[in-house]
């Protein structure tokens, strides 16, 4: 199993723990990751607004790199997933592809339209599969009450209906169960965290993320798992501020999905970057240690 790995900007900067955890999980599963060290930003909507054609050309360039490596593209960020999968769709139109290939020719590249863009969630559930995943679980999550926090862009990405129902998703809950855990059901699991207005309307983002955090907490979640580092940034970094706005103390660790998988695989928490969070992840690690003691 081989993928061209597109960590995205944030997993190579403030959320480098996501990159570390993803690499550890891929190694455990024997997934070969082709490095795209020279791939650019996906544009995240901002570049698309400033320079729509330029943004499409950059994403076509990334896709051409995966195509040259003979692999599908793997993302670990919901926003990267959305904008790259949208580029794949737009480039299915022959006229658009010809126009963009005209630009790519100037940098000695071409994209023929053969690449699929898959988020790690899809790869784990469909390409690896629940059975193989379960076989790697050495520390089942047990009674750890984990809330899936989907956010928006994974669900709105073209192609998501191939592995989940975008309106009533269950893929992350399914993964939590495969990891031996107990998913918590709550209304905010598909709510918007507000990341994309964080620098423009922080007040709004705080009220939006606060609602999701409140609903998860009220439903009994002791941790959240998210497929998006941008959701993570709002829900973890800004959790204190969201708490102030909501007049509530959340103390809710927000794990990257790769970290949760890594924990269940029994990978050393130090290799999963669990200390690089603002909201302490100690309660999660401690709960799993206690489970281990009970089992022994």
């Amino acid at each position, binding site marked *: 199993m081989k993928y061209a790995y597109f960590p995205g900007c944030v997993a190579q900067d403030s959320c480098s723990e996501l990159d570390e955890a993803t690499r550890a999980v891929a190694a455990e599963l024997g997934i070969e990751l082709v490095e795209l060290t020279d791939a650019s*930003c996906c544009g995240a909507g901002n570049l698309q607004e400033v320079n729509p054609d330029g943004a499409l050309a950059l994403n076509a360039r990334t896709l051409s790199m995966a195509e040259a490596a003979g692999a599908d593209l793997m993302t670990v960020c919901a926003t990267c997933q959305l904008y790259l999968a949208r580029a794949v769709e737009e480039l299915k139109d022959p006229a658009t592809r010809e126009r963009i290939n005209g630009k*790519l020719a100037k940098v000695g590249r071409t994209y023929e339209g053969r690449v699929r863009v898959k988020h790690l969630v899809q790869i784990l559930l469909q390409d690896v599969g629940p059975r193989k995943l379960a076989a790697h679980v050495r520390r089942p999550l047990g009674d750890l009450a984990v809330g899936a926090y989907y956010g*928006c862009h994974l669900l709105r990405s073209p192609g998501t209906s191939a592995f989940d129902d975008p309106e009533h998703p269950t893929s992350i809950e399914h993964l939590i169960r495969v990891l031996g855990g107990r998913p918590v059901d709550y209304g905010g699991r598909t709510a*918007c965290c507000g990341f994309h207005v964080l620098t423009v*309307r922080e007040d709004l983002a705080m009220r939006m993320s606060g609602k999701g955090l409140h609903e998860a907490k009220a439903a009994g979640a002791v941790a959240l798992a998210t497929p998006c580092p941008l959701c993570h940034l709002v829900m973890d970094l800004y959790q204190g501020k969201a708490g102030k706005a909501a007049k509530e103390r959340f103390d809710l660790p927000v794990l990257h999905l790769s970290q949760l998988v890594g924990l269940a695989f029994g990978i050393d928490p130090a290799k999963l970057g669990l200390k690089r969070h603002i909201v302490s992840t100690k309660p999660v690690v401690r709960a799993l240690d206690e489970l281990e003691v009970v089992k022994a």
Partner: protein
Amino acid sequence: MAVPSVMPESPTFWREVAASPGGESIAACIQCNTCTSSCPVELFEPTFRVRQIVARVKLGLREDVLSDPSIWACTRCFACVAHCPKNVRPGDLLEALRHLALREGRQGPGPRHARAFASSVREDGRINEARVTIRSVGLGGLVNQGALPVKMALRGKAPSLRRHRLRSISEIETLLEEESP
């Protein structure tokens, strides 16, 4: 008798939007309000109504729409795009409006952030979170973050101030060159 001023300033504004990426399907809008009903921003800010923005475009209220800060309050969740029964893609249409606002040099926190982001991509090929944040909110905005940057640094979570420019940055520059019309 004076005619009340209901004449739109730019009756063909909708055509301009329809010619921008994302706005192509505006003519199909039947004002059913599914977009506003799907919108998570509207839950918190009842004055933010996507349907009305589309209506104002169709009415030709160009200045009114492009100067409205609320086009920058959209979180790009694309729930409206998923739910629109006429495939108008209202969220994409808002992207087209922001594109038009940016193209004519409009100012404000929204345009400032979009430009800071695009500059970072142009300069390095990738986003430098620290630089984008400082350019988006300014040093004053950074001060408003209180102890957060310190906490981030203590956890090893602070974004790098060092540039990590792609080796092939010249490719990025070439691809981002705007075609002359």
